[in-house]
């Protein structure tokens, strides 16, 4: 690969003998380093989607191998009329919106706190990042067993301790996961994703034009005014970026739902439901149709995400 690229390096410097052929050769030399990655991506990511699309129009259940055939839109009809599927769509929306909104708000608050100079700022920043660096399954297991557990989880343990301080031996001991299954999943995820939002927003805050803010302060603007009319507008694209990247990752969440509730108690989101249709019911046609629906939904979100990212990536025409 290097030799091809090297030719391009020397060729751009010297005037080409035959313009047309040389320009084409040089264009290919430029493309060469890109091709392996591009071809690899097309084969590994695009072909399976085509296959999913084809299977979504087929009658195909691994338990009934003889009945394989063309199904038309049957699978899609089943996906849209299936109550579980509609619940899964709703759960996915609640889960994603809940986690993203709460973690963005918390992340903003914490980023503002960390955007000041104080003793131990680096230590606090490091502590804040830690939740993001626990393997998601491990984090979900810890939340389920070490924190939420009604008998010996840390939450109920802390309640017992606090009630004990006031001499009460009858503390409330809620069963967190059974009482509020979806919130249990949401909070475990908020804990993991707030650091991500905080990091993005902190980077945004540190990119503020400080001289303008100082000027506003001298002109008598108070902190709230500065925050409202200068900091927030400046942070807008960072907030959008955080929310959109967060949505893309959390829409796909499988680990927390699988671990904390096993999709029970109304927490089955789309990825978990598709996993179930495919892995337990072996209904390949229906699983594929559901997947196609999810893809279409994601494309709609992704279009907005791409627009935001592309507004951040300044068009570099310098080369």
């Amino acid at each position, binding site marked *: 690969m*290097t030799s091809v*690229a*090297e030719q391009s390096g020397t060729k751009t410097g010297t005037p080409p003998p035959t313009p047309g052929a040389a320009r084409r050769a040089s264009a290919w030399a*430029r493309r060469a*380093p*890109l091709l392996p*990655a591009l071809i690899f*991506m097309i084969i590994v*990511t695009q072909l*399976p*989607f085509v296959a*999913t699309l084809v*299977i979504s129009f087929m009658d195909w259940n691994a338990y009934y191998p003889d009945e394989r055939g063309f199904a038309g839109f049957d699978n899609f009809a089943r996906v849209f009329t299936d109550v579980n599927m509609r619940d899964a769509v709703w759960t996915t929306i609640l889960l994603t919106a809940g986690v993203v909104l709460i973690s963005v708000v918390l992340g*903003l*608050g*914490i980023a*503002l*706190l960390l955007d*000041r100079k*104080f003793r131990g700022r680096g230590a606090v920043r490091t502590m*804040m*990042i*830690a*939740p993001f*660096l626990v*393997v*998601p*399954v*491990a984090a979900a*297991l810890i*939340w389920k*067993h070490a924190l939420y557990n009604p008998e*010996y989880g*840390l939450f*109920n*343990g802390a309640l017992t301790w606090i009630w004990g301080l006031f001499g009460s031996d009858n503390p409330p001991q809620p069963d967190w996961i059974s009482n509020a299954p979806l919130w249990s999943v949401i909070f475990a995820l908020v*804990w993991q994703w707030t650091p*991500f939002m905080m*990091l*993005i927003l902190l980077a945004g805050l540190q990119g503020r034009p400080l001289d303008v803010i100082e000027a506003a*302060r001298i002109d008598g603007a*108070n*902190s*709230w005014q500065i*925050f409202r009319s200068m900091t927030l507008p400046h942070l807008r694209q960072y907030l959008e*970026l955080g929310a959109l990247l967060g949505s*893309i990752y959390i829409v*796909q969440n499988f*680990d927390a739902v*699988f671990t904390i509730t096993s999709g029970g108690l109304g927490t089955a989101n789309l990825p978990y439901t*598709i*996993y179930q249709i*495919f892995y337990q019911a072996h209904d390949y046609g229906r*699983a*594929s149709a559901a997947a196609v629906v*999810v893809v279409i939904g994601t494309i709609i979100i992704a279009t907005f995400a*791409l627009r935001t990212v*592309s507004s951040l*990536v300044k068009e570099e025409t310098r*080369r």
Partner: protein
Amino acid sequence: MTTLARPAAVEEQAVNKKKDGRGGAWLSLLAWVVGILFVLPVLWMVLTSFHSETNAAQNPPAVFAPLTLEGYREFFSGGASPWPPLLNSLTASVVSTILVLLLAIPAAYALSIKPVKKWSDVLFFFLSTKMLPVVAGLLPLYLFAQNAGLLDNIWLLVIFYTSMNLPIAVWMMRSFLSEVPVEMLEAAAVDGAGLVKTLRSVIAPVVMPGIAATALICFIFSWNELLFARVLTATVAETAPVFLTSFVTSQGLFLAQLCAAAFVVSLPVLVAGFAAQDKLVQGLSLGSVK
């Protein structure tokens, strides 16, 4: 916890009226409290992993119980050995990360230093693959693996993880490569430096930290992956996250041992993450935030 965010904005006024006054101290205290709240579950996991099972399951929590390595001993030599899954995870993560770098660096070069025509279209093609939900590709990959006899084979995961991380790596590497000053490249060209010399003495020193950060982030994502590993592997190629989930169901619940297991499995990610701390944002935001 949401209420914590509000006092921050309100109290900020106080700070600015009299700098470093009492308000500032309160804000610093608040920052510390929030930081400790967030790190608490991690600390609790580590502490519990060093407690005995009886102490781990106490209510109210036995915070100052004597420390023991019992949980770790049980985890490593109690039931099924965790070493094969850990080694599988290591293989899948390291090999896929190397493949990703081998594919992404030249691609990023062709998208930044010597860009092809329509480079931004190509760049957004890579990004769009990352936005499609992976679960939609699960079934075809499973059927392919079944027909090709690749089920429960770690190399299938290597290929999949490479495709999962390649878009991120291309974006990150492009962002790092475009930090190479044009003047330096021009100067090298004027001096008649060839490609190898330019790569080694102009580009490499600038992008080396970026390559390291990219590698660490790809490593983390591969190490963390659960869904595909669970569907595509069984007993032989099982990875550490899959082992963790099966560990709970097959062993009943031993909290100290579970915490030890969770900590051991998370340790490589914690180390890699803190090592890449400074470049973490740039990587996670696909190079759009510096």
